[in-house]
C-alpha cells in the first residue's frame, strides 16, 4: 500500500517568506508526527497529533511554527517569516496510534532551504 507522502520534496524560499509543507499519512493511521532534521543531526520532535485529541505542540521551536491536521488525514506544517536557521529536512511520520504498535512510518521529507 501507499506509504507516507510529503510535498514538496524540495522548497527554496527567501528569508521572511511563509512556507507550507504537506503530509499525507498512511490511511487508517490516527497518529501523525512532524520532525525536523538539521544537517548531520538527529531528528528533533516538533508536533504530534493523535486522533481528535489536542495536539502536543511542545517541540515547536517558536511561534512562527504551526501545524494543522484535518481529521485523521492530511497535515500541514506552516513556518511564518522563515529564517536561515529553519533550513532543514522536515519529516512527517504516522503510526496506528494509541493501543497499537509504536512503529512510526516516515515519509521522504521536504528539504527546506531559506536563502
Amino acid at each position, binding site marked *: 500500500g501507499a506509504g507516507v507522502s510529503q510535498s514538496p520534496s524540495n522548497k527554496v524560499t527567501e528569508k521572511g517568506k511563509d512556507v507550507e509543507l504537506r503530509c499525507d499519512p498512511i490511511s487508517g493511521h490516527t*497518529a501523525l*508526527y512532524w520532525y525536523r532534521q538539521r544537517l548531520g*543531526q*538527529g531528528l528533533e*520532535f516538533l508536533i504530534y497529533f493523535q486522533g481528535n485529541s489536542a495536539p502536543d505542540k511542545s517541540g515547536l521551536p517558536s511561534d512562527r511554527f504551526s501545524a494543522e491536521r484535518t481529521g485523521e488525514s492530511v497535515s500541514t506544517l506552516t513556518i511564518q517569516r522563515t529564517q536561515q536557521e529553519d533550513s532543514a529536512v522536515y519529516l512527517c511520520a504516522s503510526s496506528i496510534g494509541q493501543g497499537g504498535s*509504536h*512503529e512510526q512510518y*516516515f515519509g521522504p521529507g521536504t528539504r527546506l532551504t531559506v536563502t
Partner: protein
Amino acid sequence: QQQVKQSPQSLIVQKGGISIINCAYENTAFDYFPWYQQFPGKGPALLIAIRPDVSEKKEGRFTISFNKSAKQFSLHIMDSQPGDSATYFCAASRGGYSTLTFGKGTMLLVSP
C-alpha cells in the same frame, strides 16, 4: 538536555565485519527502544526495536543488546555488507506516549 546519546558519530567497517553502535539514555520512564536506518534522500525506516523486559533481540543479522541497569542499548550488525552503509539512529519513547527521542545518528560505511 540530550536524553539519548549515541556513539560513534561515524564508523567504517570492512565487509563481513561486525558493526557496533551504542546508545545511552537518561529517562528511566522510556520503555520502547527502536533503531532506524536512513539512506540518503529517504526517510528513516524501522530496523529493529526492543522493550526493557528482554536483554537481547535478534532479527537476521541485526541484534539489539539492552542493559537496563546501565541505561544503555546497542545495535550489532553481523556480517556487515556494503548495502548496510547508511545512517543509523537509536531512539526511545515512553509508554502511552509514542513521540520518539532520537540520538544524533551514526554514519556507517561498510567497505567492500
